[in-house]
């Protein structure tokens, strides 16, 4: 058996094969066989990843990164893009997350989608997604990364529009694809700029050359900054940051596993991954970093506010995802790439879990998504409840839960990292509070209080095992996923970040932040523990929790009052600041109008074709006039001859210059 490292392509290709088989043959198959192919391919891929990890760790630390190329993909004059892969610690993390969570969600889907039509289609798409996602994280050059980048976009388009009979669904799919593509324009141009700057799109040369270039300080916008910003626009689109986040909430039209996998755990975090991957460039472009941080911060707060009042369970989670992504960018923006990735991972666990749990709830409620029509499910679906509870704690940043470590890491970096920025930190803290609030609001509305649904119609039932198993596993991860950083509680090292350090120090120069830089600031274990447990993040989380409790358990009628008192704000939030409407009115409609009434009807048909046909008509009219010479009267003809004779004579003599 060859080393996986030598046949890396097997990892993405396995799911692709699965997709192909299911797509071409699955139509007539029973679900079971589809499962075999779908799950089988992914689990094989997962095993391959594990094997790769093993090999990675067994290899001498000297060549930390495995760079393999399997032939050229695009080749022209100076330009070359290979089917090349780049495996380093960062990739390992991503691979584990993607393959692992992906596998779990595949399994989950077997239950969730069991009764849906187009079962094979679903798994085909899902496998295809795995293929592209794996390509994205393993890619050894920007071009190939872009393949995954666009590919996952395609899959999200297909999966969001999975119920293609539902207009809202297909609209959402289209919206997702197009919106992200807007970002990708920037990304593409970024790649072009990268190529002409470094004469290559392979990471290796880029990193070394970029590292050699001088840092472009604050306010100085040079090539690197330009590259960074351009690439970041791609990230904005893909990771649903302001102002291109609008597609993500709509994306909830897709089946819930999809939301979990693509729109929470993996695809949407691609942007973060990309920024981390390109950290060398970002670290050399401080302006760009600031922009990243600011965008992230604003987004995290903004979308958190929106999710405060959402009533659709998945919408809440969607906005929460946007918000959490904001945190990750904040992390990267302040130079704590490791922290960002850390949060990316933990988020993959707990948000994936949240979605799956929500899915399980919806499944239990027979498709109902409105939290106002739920309540008191705690007893009816305990497993779902407990797992979701764990996830909520994790995201709210309750100490010792995974989310706690990652979010703290980010916030610390924002507070006293190298690129620290207090305003951002404060907003981040507030965001944390809101997060705690809306998450517990969700929890309470769903599981506590009296049932607000008609118990005779809806027969609430716990989900089948193949859905619960993933829930449980993810719950475990959501709880324990952050324990790499456990030592930090007592001022120890953060193993996760240590693990990633080689990657982010490969950027050679400074500004590689790691959250435990705070830990360096001495002090005994005890103090550390106290400081850690009483960290502002924790406190605000508690505040959030209590307000939520107050509003939704203690005084269930309070929210309405508040809504009436702050009606304006409430409506504003409920309608998501009317951003969709604004886009529609300012961009979409005018564009269509112009295209139809100006470009098409006026320019095309009116001006150009008008000119063409007009000249034709003119010619014919001239012809009509000319014909009149042929009056049919011989005398006129004779006259023409005479005219001709006179003219010719005059002309000739004129030329002769002898007309006196």
């Amino acid at each position: 058996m060859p080393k996986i490292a030598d046949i890396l392509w097997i990892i993405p290709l396995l799911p692709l094969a699965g997709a192909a088989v299911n797509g071409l043959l699955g139509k007539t198959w029973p679900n079971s066989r589809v499962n075999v192919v779908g799950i089988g391919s992914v689990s094989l891929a997962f095993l391959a990843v594990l094997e790769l990890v093993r090999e990675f760790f067994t290899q001498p630390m000297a060549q930390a990164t495995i760079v393999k190329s399997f032939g050229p993909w695009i080749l022209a004059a100076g330009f070359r893009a290979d089917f090349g892969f780049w495996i380093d610690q960062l990739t390992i993390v991503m691979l584990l997350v993607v393959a692992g969570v992906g596998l779990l969600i595949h399994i989950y889907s077997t239950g969730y989608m069991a009764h849906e039509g187009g079962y094979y289609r679903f798994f085909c798409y899902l496998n295809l997604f795995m293929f592209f996602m794996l390509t994205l994280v393993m890619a050894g050059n920007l071009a190939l990364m872009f393949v995954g980048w666009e590919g996952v976009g395609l899959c999200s388009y297909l999966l969001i529009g999975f119920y293609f009979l539902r207009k809202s669904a297909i609209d959402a799919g289209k919206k997702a694809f197009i919106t992200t593509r807007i970002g990708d324009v920037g990304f593409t141009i970024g790649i072009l700029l990268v190529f002409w700057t470094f004469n290559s799109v392979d990471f290796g040369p880029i990193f070394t050359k970029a590292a050699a270039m001088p840092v472009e300080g604050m306010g100085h916008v040079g090539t690197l900054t330009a590259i960074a910003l351009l690439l970041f626009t791609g990230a904005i689109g893909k990771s649903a940051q302001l102002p291109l986040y609008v597609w993500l909430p709509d994306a909830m039209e897709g089946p819930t596993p999809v939301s979990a996998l693509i729109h929470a755990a993996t695809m949407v975090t691609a942007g973060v991954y990309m920024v981390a991957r390109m950290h060398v460039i970002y670290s050399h472009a401080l302006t760009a970093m600031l922009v990243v941080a600011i965008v992230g911060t604003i987004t995290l707060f903004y979308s958190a506010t929106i999710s405060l009042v959402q009533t659709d369970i998945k919408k809440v989670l969607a906005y929460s995802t946007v918000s959490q992504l904001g945190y990750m960018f904040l992390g990267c923006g302040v130079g704590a790439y490791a922290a960002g990735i850390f949060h990316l991972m933990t988020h993959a666990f707990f948000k994936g879990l949240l979605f799956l749990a929500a899915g399980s709830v919806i499944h239990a409620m027979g498709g109902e998504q409105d939290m106002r029509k739920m309540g008191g499910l705690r007893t009816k679906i305990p497993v779902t409840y407990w797992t979701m509870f764990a996830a909520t704690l994790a995201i709210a940043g309750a100490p010792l839960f995974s989310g706690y470590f990652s979010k703290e890491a980010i916030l610390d970096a924002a507070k006293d990292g190298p690129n620290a920025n207090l305003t951002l930190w404060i907003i981040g803290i507030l965001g944390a509070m809101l997060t705690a609030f809306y998450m517990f609001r969700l929890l309470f509305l769903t599981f506590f209080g009296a049932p607000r649904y008609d118990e005779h119609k809806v027969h609430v039932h716990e989900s089948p095992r193949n859905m619960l198993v993933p829930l449980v596993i993810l719950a475990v991860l959501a709880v324990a996923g952050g324990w790499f950083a456990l030592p930090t509680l007592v001022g120890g090292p953060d193993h996760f970040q240590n693990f990633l350090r080689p990657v982010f120090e490969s950027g050679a120069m400074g500004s590689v932040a790691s959250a435990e830089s705070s830990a360096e600031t001495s002090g005994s274990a005890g103090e550390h523990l106290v400081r850690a447990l009483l960290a502002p993040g924790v406190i605000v989380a508690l505040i959030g929790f209590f307000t939520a409790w107050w509003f939704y358990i203690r005084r269930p009628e309070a929210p309405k009052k508040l809504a009436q008192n702050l009606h304006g704000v409430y409506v504003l939030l409920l309608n998501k600041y009317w951003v969709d409407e604004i886009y529609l009115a300012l961009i979409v409609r005018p564009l269509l109008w112009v295209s139809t009434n100006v470009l098409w009807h006026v320019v095309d048909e009116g001006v150009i074709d008008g000119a063409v046909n007009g000249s034709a008509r003119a010619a014919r009219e001239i012809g009509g006039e000319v014909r009149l010479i042929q009056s049919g009267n011989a005398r006129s003809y004779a006259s023409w001859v005479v005219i001709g004779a006179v003219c010719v004579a005059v002309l000739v003599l004129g030329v002769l210059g002898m007309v006196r």
Partner: protein
Amino acid sequence: MTLPYLLFFTFAAIAVAGALLVIFMKHPIHSALALILVMVSLAVLYLLLGAEFIAAVQIIVYAGAIMVLFVIVIMLLNAGVEQRTNLSKMARFAGVPLGIFLTFALAFWLSHAALAKPPANALLPSTEDATRELSNLLFRTYLFPFEATSIVILIAILGALVLARRDS
């Protein structure tokens, strides 16, 4: 004012007058007679130019044969007075004016034309010589065109046959 000049101007005047009559006479017969007048006066001018043979031919063939043919046809078709319709604006506003212009222009231009040298001797060459010379030219130098004319006449006959023949 010598005799030649006198002759010239007299018959030139007659010729022009005849031409004008051709134009202004309303009845074809009158026009025809006017044309004959022109031809006769031209014959005289030929004599003046020392071309007796041509003058003779002019009288015999032209005035004699061709114009008679015209007159006969006019009689045959008993063509009445020509009605002066004015359907052709071209003729009225371009043709006739320019025709008149052309008349004067040509006259003007030709009056300035640099001609070949004037006659070596005022004496007219004796008739026989001229005629013999003519026949030489006709049957030696210009034999080919001469033959061609025979074909032309043949064609004319054919034409008359084809066109004017009554179908039985």
